[in-house]
């Protein structure tokens, strides 16, 4: 497949670097201010070097990449809420040209799922977004394999930063502020950690799962309930004191930021779970637990973030387009 990549952050760059290993070639890349188009395929090393040294990917206008001759658009710009722009327009451009779109950007899938589905229905291109939930974990494709109509709930630990903080607080008996500073030093938490610690990121992933369940189970997409972040009941971990984790540990339990999606509700909150239970993954690990009607409970854990990990989910999606 010929790929165009919008977004040259950690995920976009990793897609460019790894595409060749998966048998694909990258013909265009855009970041927020520039683009490079190479019909014969571009040199990943040169692109990554230029981005690192000059802060741009090429001399072209970002729109050039969207107009290039590609089979699949990989949308990897930063997640935005509300109208989910500019990511949504990038995907629309691709779908209106009957090209496929693979998203690592959560915004359009969480905030404008019905619009996205309608665009895909009107054209020949397909939309996939495995990388938006749980990084390397094949959460969406597993739900699709089991069939959304036979999945009663999906829950799990879907934010590595929040999980790292809770794990460290429990293990070291430290308070939130102390562990957050440590996580920032290690690069596990951003300078502004709100998106992760307030539960927004986990909630977006659960909203995406709720949309997959809802639209997947409906006979007619027009009847499916659409979920956005506004439909999610979200609590973060900022005001969980160290003493709460100590009390939990005395009783063989711990606290994890758990997201849950069913066909009807989305909820993210710190929850008490058994200390040695399946959901109590450590550090930056994620876990997705799928509750099925006939196949019991499926658990998949793994790395929920990181450039190459998330890029592998993107490239798996490209492979599924066939």
């Amino acid at each position, binding site marked *: 497949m010929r790929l165009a990549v919008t977004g040259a952050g950690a995920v976009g760059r990793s897609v460019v670097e790894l595409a060749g290993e998966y048998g694909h070639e990258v013909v265009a890349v855009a970041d927020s201010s520039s683009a490079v188009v190479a019909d014969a395929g571009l040199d990943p090393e040169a692109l990554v070097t230029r981005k690192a040294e000059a802060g741009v990917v090429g001399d072209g206008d970002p729109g050039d990449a969207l107009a290039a001759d590609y089979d699949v658009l990989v949308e990897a710009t930063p997640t935005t809420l509300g109208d989910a722009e500019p990511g949504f327009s990038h995907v629309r451009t691709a779908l209106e040209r009957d090209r496929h779109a693979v998203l690592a950007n959560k915004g359009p899938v969480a905030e404008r799922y019905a619009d996205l589905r309608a665009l895909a229905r009107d054209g020949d291109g397909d939309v996939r977004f495995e990388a938006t939930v749980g990084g390397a974990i094949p959460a969406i494709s597993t739900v699709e394999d089991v069939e959304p109509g036979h999945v009663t709930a999906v829950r799990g630990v879907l934010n590595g930063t929040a999980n790292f903080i809770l794990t460290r607080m429990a293990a070291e008996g430290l308070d939130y502020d102390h562990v957050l500073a440590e996580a920032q030093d290690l690069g596990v938490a951003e300078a502004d950690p709100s998106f992760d610690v307030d539960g927004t990121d986990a909630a977006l992933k659960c909203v995406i799962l709720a949309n997959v369940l809802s639209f997947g189970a409906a006979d007619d997409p027009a009847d499916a309930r659409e979920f956005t972040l506004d439909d999610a009941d979200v609590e973060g971990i900022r005001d*969980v004191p160290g003493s709460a984790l100590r*009390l939990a540990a*005395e*009783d063989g*339990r711990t606290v994890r930021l758990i997201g849950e999606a069913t066909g009807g509700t989305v909820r993210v909150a710190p929850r*008490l*779970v058994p200390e040695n239970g399946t959901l109590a993954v450590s550090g930056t690990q994620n876990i997705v637990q799928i509750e099925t009607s006939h196949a019991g409970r499926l658990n998949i854990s793994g790395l929920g973030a990181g450039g190459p990990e998330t890029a592998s989910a993107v490239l798996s999606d490209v492979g599924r387009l066939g």
Partner: protein
Amino acid sequence: MSDAPDGAPEDPEGADEADPAVDGGHDPGSSTHTVRLELVDEPGQLLAALQPIADNGGNLLSIYHERGNKTPRGRIPVEVDFEATADRFEVIVGALRDEGIAVMQAGTERYAEELTLLLVGHLIDTDLSDTLSRIEADASTSVADVSLAAPQGTAEASSARLRLEARTGETADALETVRGIAEEKGLRVVAPLAGVET
């Protein structure tokens, strides 16, 4: 009457009646009850737990003391079978609770389910004792155990771990009761993941 334990009260319905112990509760006379208790691992606790049963007309049948099988909090589970009328059974369970004994299960219906949750916030300033009384006031819920951690006194948020007992099928109601009180007092509830704990 030949299989009645020594000292059992006379069965007013006679020996040819079906054994009321099997379904328990409907017979106006004595029937067999089972209570499951959790005792602190200290000398004299077992005797203290049996006294309210004997004092209130319960006829002890058997005691199963699982000394080698402690709960995560270091308590010892004890199962006690005794005969009592339905009225006396209620009195006995009340007397056990009054003695501060954790009654995990009484009979087959009441308080068969347990729910552990955390409350976080200014627990002391918002009158923890009032919070607990109001949870207790809910008909379906009983507070079995409370642990408080307030490392900074009242200056910072404190935490409490509550073990609630709820009637079968009513844990969701119990949780809603706690959430309502917590919301009113500006506290946060860290709820267990229902149905997932194994």
